[in-house]
């Protein structure tokens, strides 16, 4: 493709940018192509060296301020082909008010949807059982997914919270966080409340699978990992009979005072802290790089605890005495510090560390 066509195509696709920024981007790439041609590479090859155009566009948009990150509705006429030249006078510049209106409408629809769904679920709870099952039946044909990503203003102006419907009828709560600190606490009320230092990074989705099981997923993905001051998401969860799944890519996770049926936590890089956590069936945690500190973990008889850490330490304190547990602990490279465990209790505890230390002790010993 010719350089001229490529730059024109780039201008077309970035036409919503302010003129300065547009000139800057296109100037940069025009320069880049010129430099390569000067080096002796042919024009076609020089343009090709810029990379796959759509991917390039995505990268450029991702580096722009928030308002330019998504491309407005304008598209090059598909019949003409992506790289077709367009006469200058056909270049479309969306007027700012139009863009604003689109956003306002989307926001209103989302807000109305949020109110309706919150109202509906509150209604079903208030009305008791018959309507709860109606709620489930209405939403359990095949899979229904709905996104609500409009934050509800709550207290401080620079923080926003999601007020989510309560967890009645929800079988599974999945919380996924990338490059942020995650704190989970119990909720005073029946509602799930999620606070985030950047509410635009928080998305909530709810799905019902073919068996009627309902999963609530809260996802927070931040663009940059700030090593000294990571963004933070706090989620308040009410007690319930749900399975709690936590996935964190890079960031610390802290669970404090939670009660759930099953808890499953995976942290790729970060510290996992569990304090006064109760799982009615099982608790399992995997940390790839980081550490696990768990105090006062309660699991009833027949239950199980499984903690594993690839690189990092595990410190675990269990309530009661060792006779209530059957412990299987191993460390590949590091120190293993556990009391002589003679118990063959009916709570199974599996602990494993690849590189690091493992400390286990019992409250009553």
């Amino acid at each position, binding site marked *: 493709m010719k350089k001229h066509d490529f730059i024109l195509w780039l201008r077309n696709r970035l036409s919503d940018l302010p003129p300065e920024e547009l000139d*800057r*981007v296109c*100037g*940069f*790439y025009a*320069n*880049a192509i*010129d*430099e*390569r041609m*000067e*080096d002796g590479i042919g024009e076609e090859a020089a343009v090709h*060296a*810029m*990379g796959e155009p759509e*991917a*390039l566009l995505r*990268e*450029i948009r*991702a*580096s722009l301020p928030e308002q330019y990150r998504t491309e407005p509705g304008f598209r090059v006429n598909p019949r003409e082909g992506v790289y077709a030249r367009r006469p200058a006078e056909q270049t479309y510049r969306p007027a700012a008010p139009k863009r604003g209106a689109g956003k306002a409408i989307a926001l209103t629809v989302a807000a109305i949807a949020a109110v309706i769904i919150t109202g509906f679920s509150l209604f079903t709870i208030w009305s008791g059982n018959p309507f709860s099952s109606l709620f489930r039946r209405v939403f359990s044909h095949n899979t229904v997914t709905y996104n609500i990503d409009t934050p509800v203003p709550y207290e401080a102006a620079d923080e926003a919270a999601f007020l989510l419907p309560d967890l009645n009828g929800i079988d599974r709560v999945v919380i996924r966080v990338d*490059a942020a600190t995650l704190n989970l606490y119990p909720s005073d009320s029946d509602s799930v409340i999620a606070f985030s230092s950047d509410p635009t990074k928080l998305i909530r989705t709810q799905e019902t699978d073919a068996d009627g099981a309902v999963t609530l997923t809260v996802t927070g993905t931040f663009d*940059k*990992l700030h*090593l000294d001051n990571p963004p933070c998401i706090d989620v308040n969860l009410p007690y319930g009979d749900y399975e709690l799944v936590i996935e964190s*890519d*890079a960031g610390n996770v802290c669970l404090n005072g939670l009660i759930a049926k099953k808890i499953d936590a995976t942290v790729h*890089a970060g510290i996992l802290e569990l304090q006064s956590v109760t799982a009615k069936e099982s608790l399992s945690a995997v940390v790839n790089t980081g550490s696990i500190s768990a105090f006062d973990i309660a699991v009833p008889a027949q239950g199980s605890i499984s903690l594993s850490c690839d*690189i*990092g330490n595990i410190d675990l304190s269990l309530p009661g005495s060792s006779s209530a547990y059957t412990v299987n602990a191993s460390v590949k*490279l*590091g*120190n293993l510090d556990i009391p002589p465990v003679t118990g063959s209790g009916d709570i199974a505890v599996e602990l494993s560390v690849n*590189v*690091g230390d493992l400390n286990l002790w019992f409250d009553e010993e």
Partner: protein
Amino acid sequence: MDIQLKRGILEVCVLKALQRQDSYGYQIIKDLSPSVELSESTLYPILRRMEGAGCVTEYSVEHSGRLRKYYHLTPSGQERILDFLKEWDEVVKAYDFIRGKNNEEA
């Protein structure tokens, strides 16, 4: 490598490439290519971000009938390189500890 980590490291590499002398896009890519794989699509956002952060300034110089854009490292940018090196020392210390440099303790 984790993408966030990679982006951070690439940023400092680009700053380093400007440390000795001012340079332009293609030259930066060529200078970095023995050690670091970099393309314009990655370089432009980095330069833009560094410019926004005050680590880099740009100016144009006429060359072969067009304007070639040069980038210059500011004192802020210089500090950024030093900060990175300081942080990395800590990472190395932690790595040594975790790896268990004193294997006889195991």
